[in-house]
């Protein structure tokens, strides 16, 4: 219910002007700020709303939100003092930022999962053992610190740390305690049992949307899969084309990511439900579906948490997807800004911030 799709709209304005109610001269704001200028694709200018119930505690009077794609240009403008907060940072300059702008970068765990989907509608990935082999051979510990450089945490389970309404120990697969070499040996055996070898490798196509980081990870993982008799063809395309292919089940292994809309495990669990539009791998397990339905109807939070643990375990033991890392939020915050508190959803409402001039 805290999701923006269920916010109330002002009926009297909508009745009067229809879809134009969002235009600046019509829109009704009951929050801490109201927009006064909006150039689409460029920026929004908001000013403090005097009618806000807590207006006396809102310190900042004017806010400009800019939309920019070029991260290096944004960093230049931040350094020139034109921006106070950057909500993303160019990862290839992360080391530089840490050394030259000490204390200003904030890289913290964030509710999101980066994973590979495996298309289970046709061979060979409908074979659970092959999926298991692929997952075991991925050395997740190096992806965050070494491949990306920003220290993302490895993901062995489906639910990110810090998620609400979920207590108890996080999911750990039984093979997590094995050393990486042992895992590779186990994976190799699974592949050989399925009939693959150096003379007869499994040819897989790995699709990802065009992006430097996705490429680095894909190349690293392709190298990790080579010793277990897998030959990878890398294929990248624009984001829209990529997701179109995933939706059409036109892929073997595809890169995907999911940022939680709201802070509850159901938002992740529904991704693996039969028939869900975002279940690109078409994973289907009636036991899993039944548990997810059950947790939705369970009011007692403790009992619900137990059910969700069970569901996650089933999906992960089935190797429904290949989670790789949990996202981190990246912000660069000027020392002039106060009240910026890191949190798992990366929400930083201006109304709680203040500035020293």
């Amino acid at each position, binding site marked *: 219910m805290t999701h923006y799709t269920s916010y109330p709209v002002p009926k009297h304005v909508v009745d009067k002007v229809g*879809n134009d109610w*969002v*235009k600046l001269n019509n829109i009704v704001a009951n929050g801490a700020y109201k927009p006064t200028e909006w*150039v*689409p*694709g*460029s*920026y929004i200018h908001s000013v403090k709303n005097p009618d806000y119930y807590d207006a006396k505690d809102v310190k900042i009077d004017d806010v400009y939100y*800019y939309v*920019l*794609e*070029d991260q*290096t*240009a*944004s960093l*230049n*403008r931040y*350094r*020139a*003092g*034109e921006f106070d907060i950057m909500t993303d940072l160019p990862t290839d300059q992360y080391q530089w930022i840490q050394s030259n702008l000490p204390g200003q970068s904030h890289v913290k765990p964030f509710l999101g999962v980066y994973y590979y989907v495996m298309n289970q509608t046709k061979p060979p990935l409908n074979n659970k053992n092959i999926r298991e082999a692929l997952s075991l051979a991925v050395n997740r510990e190096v992806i965050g610190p070494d491949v990306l450089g920003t220290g993302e945490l490895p993901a062995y389970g489906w639910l990110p740390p810090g998620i609400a309404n979920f207590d108890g120990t996080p999911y750990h697969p039984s093979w997590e305690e094995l050393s990486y070499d042992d895992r590779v040996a186990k994976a190799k055996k699974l592949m050989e049992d399925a009939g693959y070898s150096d003379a007869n490798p499994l040819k897989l196509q790995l699709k990802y949307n065009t992006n430097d980081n996705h490429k680095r990870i894909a190349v690293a993982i392709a190298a990790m899969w080579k010793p277990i008799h897998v030959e990878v063809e890398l294929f990248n*395309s*624009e*984001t*829209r*084309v*990529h*997701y*179109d*292919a995933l*939706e059409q089940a036109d892929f073997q292994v595809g890169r*995907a*990511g*999911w940022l939680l809309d709201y802070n509850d495990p159901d938002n992740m669990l529904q991704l693996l439900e039969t028939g869900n*539009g*975002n279940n690109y791998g078409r994973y289907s397990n009636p036991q899993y579906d039944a548990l997810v339905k059950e947790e939705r109807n369970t009011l007692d939070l403790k009992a619900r948490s137990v059910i969700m643990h069970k569901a996650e375990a089933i999906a992960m033991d089935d190797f429904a997807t290949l989670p790789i890392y949990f996202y981190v939020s990246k912000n660069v915050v000027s020392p002039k800004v106060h009240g910026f508190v890191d949190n798992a959803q990366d929400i930083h409402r201006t109304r709680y911030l203040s500035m020293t001039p």
Partner: protein
Amino acid sequence: MLAYTLRRILSALPVVFIAVTVSFFIMRLAPGGPFDGERALPPEVMVNVRAHYHLDQPILTQYLIYLDGLIHGDFGPSMAFYDHTVTQLMLIGLPFTLTLGSIAFLLATAVGIVAGVLAALYQNKWPDYVLVLAVMLGVIVPNFLMGALLQLFFGVYLKWLPAGGWETGSISHLIMPVVVLAWPHAARISRLMRGAMIEVLGTNYVRTARSKGIGAQLVLVRHALKPALIPVVSYLGPGLSYLLTGSLVVEQIFGLPGIGKYFITAALDRDYGLVLGTTILYMFIILILNLAVDLLYAWLDPRVRYR
């Protein structure tokens, strides 16, 4: 001349029509649509969305609906910026891009001509080398690098100019983008000017004028400049097209609210309406300016007369 102008305008219309049709169908051929993203919309919602934008109709019907809208001056809704129509978006971005583009164009042409003339007059002496090197930097250094370097030096280190962004009526925000945009254009103009001027200065009629005792400056302005401008003017048409494409990069680096950004975003987001709108716009600008350049050409060279 008037008849010629009218004929040119009329013959441009089929070109526009063909370009619109080709763009329309090519966009639809590209894989991926405006609503394919990281989140799949629930099927019931997708049906509604597609119906709203007529995407569920056969492609020819969509085409005719679009043409009908065009004739009435309506470019349709934008699918990426879904609270705005394409017309509204273009009205936001167009004045800015035109301002940026025309200032850069005029500045570059003026600087290029002056640099070229001076380089030709002092041919093979030090002013020639210095001027040629200065303008050539615009061609050697690609515009995205030039933009980033200027932004760093003048915006971050020296803090003499704002590093980007735009405030209405501000000149200081325009200085760096205009310089980055104009530099390569000035380089090409000055090269053409220098070459043409050297050639003209060696012609018989110029030597005749000098031998009659006319001062060097008068010879330059009255006899040499006009014919030497001919190759320059012929280049201005395509030169403007290069300039407009350069503005896409400059607007990106300096975060300027021009059309370039909409063009790129729309193409990547498969926002059919916005891509077609910006394509048509660029086409019109180029066609009109090419026509203006051709008319200017006739004025400069009395041997050229249009029938």
